[in-house]
């Protein structure tokens, strides 16, 4: 390669690197901002400094949210809702996904189409009637009502994912099990499910995340402060007129740590998981 060509390549590489670094710094700036604000001391909340580590940085806000604010209460509520949604979501998606994958029956095509179409519902389309219906049966402002709403939102995608994954497991394995002595359900339980672990994990994660990080639906269904989930609680800290920015930021950091950690760990499976079931459409 000519020396000129080489030089060109190096210049190009340097330019790309520099551009990427600058861009990435811009991208993560908001995140750093949150951490920075969470460290601000009480008397400097409305600061006009752009420094990332503020003068007099303190961890007081973290202390405050755990002991002065009902953060733990919000955490408890969020966990309760999210875990319930996950369990129900996985149970329902794994069984109905199996039915769609393995059997042909009247309603199969309609069902699949229905799942797809329901992805396009605007938020209020189900939220409004659900709100009214739940009010009528007294499940408004109650954890079960929220669970119901979240399951309705997350289920279609989960069924789609499970169905896609099941289709990659050879039917012969289940047939062998049935000849060996299981019923169809037995084969599903002992053979298919264990082999579907990756897809089950994606379904569980998606269900959990939907419930954990969701704000607008919770806002409609939950009104009592003692039932606030984390999103509602944090938003109350970042309220309209008086913004307890430091506390809110501390809470945000705490909430984001598990989410981001999970995301980074599963980074590898993201692409394959998405193309496996969902995105292929």
């Amino acid at each position, binding site marked *: 390669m000519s020396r000129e060509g080489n030089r060109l390549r190096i210049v190009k590489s340097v330019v790309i690197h520099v551009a990427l670094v600058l861009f990435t710094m811009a991208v993560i700036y*908001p995140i750093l901002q949150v951490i920075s604000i969470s460290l601000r001391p009480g008397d400097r909340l409305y600061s006009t400094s752009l420094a990332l580590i503020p003068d007099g940085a303190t961890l007081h806000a973290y202390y405050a949210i755990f002991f002065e604010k009902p953060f733990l209460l919000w955490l408890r509520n969020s966990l309760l809702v999210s875990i319930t949604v996950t369990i129900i979501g996985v149970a329902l998606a794994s069984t109905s996904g199996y039915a769609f994958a393995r059997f042909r029956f009247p309603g199969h095509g309609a069902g699949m189409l229905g799942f797809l179409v329901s992805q*396009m519902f605007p938020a209020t389309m189900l939220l409004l009637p659900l709100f009214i219906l739940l009010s009528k049966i007294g499940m408004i402002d109650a954890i079960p009502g929220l669970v119901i709403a979240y*399951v309705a939102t997350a289920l279609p995608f989960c069924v789609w994912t499970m169905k896609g994954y099941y289709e990659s497991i050879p039917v012969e394995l289940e047939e062998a099990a049935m000849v060996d002595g299981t019923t169809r359900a037995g084969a599903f339980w002992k053979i298919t499910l264990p082999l579907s672990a990756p897809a089950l994990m994606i379904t569980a994660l998606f269900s959990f995340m939907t419930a954990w*990080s969701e704000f607008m639906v919770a806002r409609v269904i939950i009104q009592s402060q003692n039932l606030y989930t984390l999103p509602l609680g944090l938003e109350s800290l970042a309220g309209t007129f008086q913004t307890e920015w430091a506390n809110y930021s501390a809470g945000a950091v705490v909430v984001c740590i598990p*989410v*981001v950690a999970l995301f*980074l760990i599963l980074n590898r499976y993201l692409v394959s998981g998405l193309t496996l079931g969902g995105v292929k459409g």
Partner: protein
Amino acid sequence: MRSFWKRHSQPYLFLAPAVAVMLFIVLYPFLYNVYIAFSNMSLYHLRDLEFVGLKHFRTILSEPAIWAVFGKTILWTVVNVVSHLVLGVGLAVLLNQQIKGRAIFRALLILPWAMPQYITALTWRGMFNYEYGSINLGLKAIGLSPIPWLASEIGAFAAPVIANIWLGFPFMMIIALGGLQSIPKELYEAADLDGAGWWFRLRKITLPLLKPVLLPAAILGTIWTFNNLNVIWLITNQGEPADKTHILVTYVYKAAFHYYRYGYAAAFSLVIFVILLSFVLAFLRAGKERTR
């Protein structure tokens, strides 16, 4: 009848729990929504419902303000999705090469997507604050005058757009990265031998081969962006100033849960759904034809 049951009992049993749930919390509400749309349900009329026919739909189609909201929604969606695609694909192309620290870049650039939307939305709102937000502080620091982001109509539209672009490009980036990895290297090598420049390679090899992967992602992205409540709601603080920064979905949300115009909101939801469905179908058909 009996042989029908015998042949199909198994799948139906497997489906039974999920179907029961779906019927109660998806299908029934959907139908109920249709019912409400044709009634006069509101805060004043919760029990004594009357059938009002197409009244709400006529209102929707005739109010001029609504057309503005519709236009804003289109603008919102187009600007976002195009930016997501350009940024996402561009970054993916860059990251697909032998760059040092590729993994770190990838991990960091995913963060906007990884974080919960409500948190990032609230954070951006803080950043757009006129006096204390870091964006204006930054502008001042380099000698420019601060922009009244959330107080002016245009600013209050631009702010969520910027925030949402930041939120949405990682998804496209990941999809594009996955797609790039399945493009065989020989194609690029052949192009190199033919003396092709990077622009040519991008246009003739990369983009066409990415299309099958990008198309479903773009459709999903369009649906999600079109229906996105969190970002606009939280950043513009429920449509400020003066309800001028709504997109369709936030407008309906407010109508339903702040103004209690249930019948109206239900009808509107249906309209939005039909619009979205038509877009997607048209999108799909256009995509299919071009591949032919």
